């Protein structure tokens, strides 16, 4: 659990670095800190340790999740270079808060005790509330921050009540204690059932599953794009790691009681996310609904909890994170250029689908990166997203949940429609576009994301032997 300690220290160091005159050191310092943490993370490889009086546990799975989260954060930070140069930006605080929120994410991944789950969720969320509202003068950002904050705190309250009820039913906060206390040999008690339900609702809120997804589009839309990218990758991955751990360790014995409910929520999430995404005009808002729908695909693996779920969730969250970051990276550049070209109110129009018209002609690299990430999100073969969906669907087949599978397949065909809108706009529409200046480092990150997406699509076995 050295990464948690390191990230906390590095976050404080970053805040102090903010006192220096030159802000140029902050970005490389943050990237360096993330790389160090990522390297240190693997020290416990193939060993499973309990840390801090049995509060946290490391395992190969937790280390892989940590690596995904830190890797996504690395890419988001690398893409943030130009955003942070804006005059009102306070990069030291932003980067510091990002590192602190990663501490929360790591606690959510490694928790062994419900107390740590709660504290992790809160560290992650509170940092994200601030980052969402970081564009202080922008009303959209303000509104997003308030909505995120009120809804997040509300969800935390529900989650805590669930934890309290579970404590009453089982007398323990540890994962194993809750699991053995809730043993369903002679039926499930009302206290356990309601506690489990409320705890799950709280967590499903955080990963934006329907019908608890209403905050997501507003928050993702209003937040500065770079933090939207951070939110939709890091928070989602950490949330699913926590859900998986909770369901597979504590509530595995109660599977017959919760799977129907979770399957219904999954189907609702898939339908709500995909159908609403079709009607969006803003690319950023479409990505918010797309993130809801991907929460649905990830939930399939949990509703069909089995031997393949672990692998499926890891692969899917990796594929989803990489593709999403590439998409937001391109959006950042395009929206910036469009905002300078035409007069737009608060940068709204510059994030529409029209902004991508004719992009690929002058900017083949950006067009290609965007196209690959859209194909991956849509689940087209030869991209990582295809195998992610494939693994997810095979967990459902393993459990024989065919109706869920039918819903998921139907909805992923709907998904193809709105993901291809971007590709069509980029390649087949005419638009006034000059070449967009891309900094070399920025280009490497986009290229790395594209290569990773294609590489995992061609050789999905690369990841399988790891854990």
């Amino acid at each position, binding site marked *: 659990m050295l990464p948690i300690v390191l990230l906390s220290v590095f976050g404080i160091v970053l805040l102090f670095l903010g006192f220096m005159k030159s802000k140029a050191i902050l970005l490389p310092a943050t990237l360096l800190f993330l790389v160090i943490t990522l390297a240190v993370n693997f020290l416990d490889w193939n060993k499973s340790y309990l840390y801090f009086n049995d509060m946290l546990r490391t395992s190969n799975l937790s280390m892989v999740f940590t690596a995904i989260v830190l890797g996504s954060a690395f890419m988001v930070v690398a893409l943030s270079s130009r955003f942070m140069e804006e005059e009102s930006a306070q990069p030291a605080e932003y980067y510091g808060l990002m590192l602190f929120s990663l501490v929360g994410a790591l606690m959510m991944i490694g928790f062994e005790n419900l107390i740590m789950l709660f504290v992790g969720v809160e560290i992650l969320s509170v940092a994200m509330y601030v980052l969402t509202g970081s564009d202080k003068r922008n009303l959209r950002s303000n509104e997003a921050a308030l909505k995120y904050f009120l809804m997040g705190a509300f969800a935390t309250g*529900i989650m*805590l009540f669930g934890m309290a009820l579970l404590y009453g039913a089982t007398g323990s906060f540890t994962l194993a204690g809750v699991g053995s206390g809730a043993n369903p040999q002679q039926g499930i008690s009302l206290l356990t059932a309601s506690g489990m339900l409320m705890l799950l609702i709280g967590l499903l809120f955080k990963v934006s599953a329907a019908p608890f997804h209403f905050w997501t589009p507003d928050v993702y839309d209003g937040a500065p794009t770079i933090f939207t990218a951070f939110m939709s990758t890091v928070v989602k991955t950490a949330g699913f790691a926590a859900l998986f751990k909770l369901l597979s360790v504590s509530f595995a014995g109660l599977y017959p009681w919760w799977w129907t409910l979770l399957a219904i929520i999954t189907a609702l999430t898939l339908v709500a996310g995909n159908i609403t995404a079709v009607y969006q005009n803003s690319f950023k808002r479409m990505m918010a609904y797309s993130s809801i729908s991907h929460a649905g695909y990830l939930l399939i693996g949990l509703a069909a909890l089995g031997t393949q779920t672990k692998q499926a969730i890891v692969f899917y969250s990796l594929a989803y994170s990489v593709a999403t970051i590439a998409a937001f990276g391109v959006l950042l550049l395009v929206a910036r250029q469009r905002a300078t070209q035409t007069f737009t109110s608060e940068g709204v129009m510059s994030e529409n689908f029209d902004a991508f018209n004719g992009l690929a002609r002058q900017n083949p690299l950006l067009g290609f990166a965007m196209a690959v990430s859209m194909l991956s999100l849509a689940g087209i073969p030869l991209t990582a997203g295809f195998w992610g969906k494939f693994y997810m669907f095979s967990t459902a087949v393993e459990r024989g949940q065919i109706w869920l599978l039918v819903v998921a397949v139907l909805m992923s065909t709907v998904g193809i429609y709105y993901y291809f809108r971007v590709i069509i706009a980029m390649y087949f529409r005419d638009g006034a576009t000059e070449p967009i200046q891309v900094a070399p480092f920025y280009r490497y990150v986009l290229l790395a994301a594209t290569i990773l997406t294609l590489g995992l699509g061609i050789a999905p076995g690369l990841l399988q032997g790891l854990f």
Partner: protein
Amino acid sequence: MQPTQDVLIPEVIQQIPLTYYLIFSTALFVIGIIGVLTRRNAIVIFMSIELMLNAVNLLLIAFSSYRSDSSGQVFVFFIMAVAAAEVSVGLAIIVMIYRNTRSIDVGLLNKLKW
């Protein structure tokens, strides 16, 4: 839910059945939820959330006393500390909005739709 033998449960708490605590904190919690869903003033919504958290605290203390297990009370400390941190961030967000719009009515926040 029976307290284990040979452990001391404070007399006062024992006189009231555990179910009463459960019902009482559930009622508080539901009042909080209703407040969040129906009120439009950001501060009042905020208060309702605090009410929900305090219902949880009360419930945890009750369970903890009846089980003579201290971990529930430790959790309460965590909740109080985290809630304080959350309040500071939340109030800062509300102040930020008040500076821009001169109002804290959440009904006025409608820039983001569909």
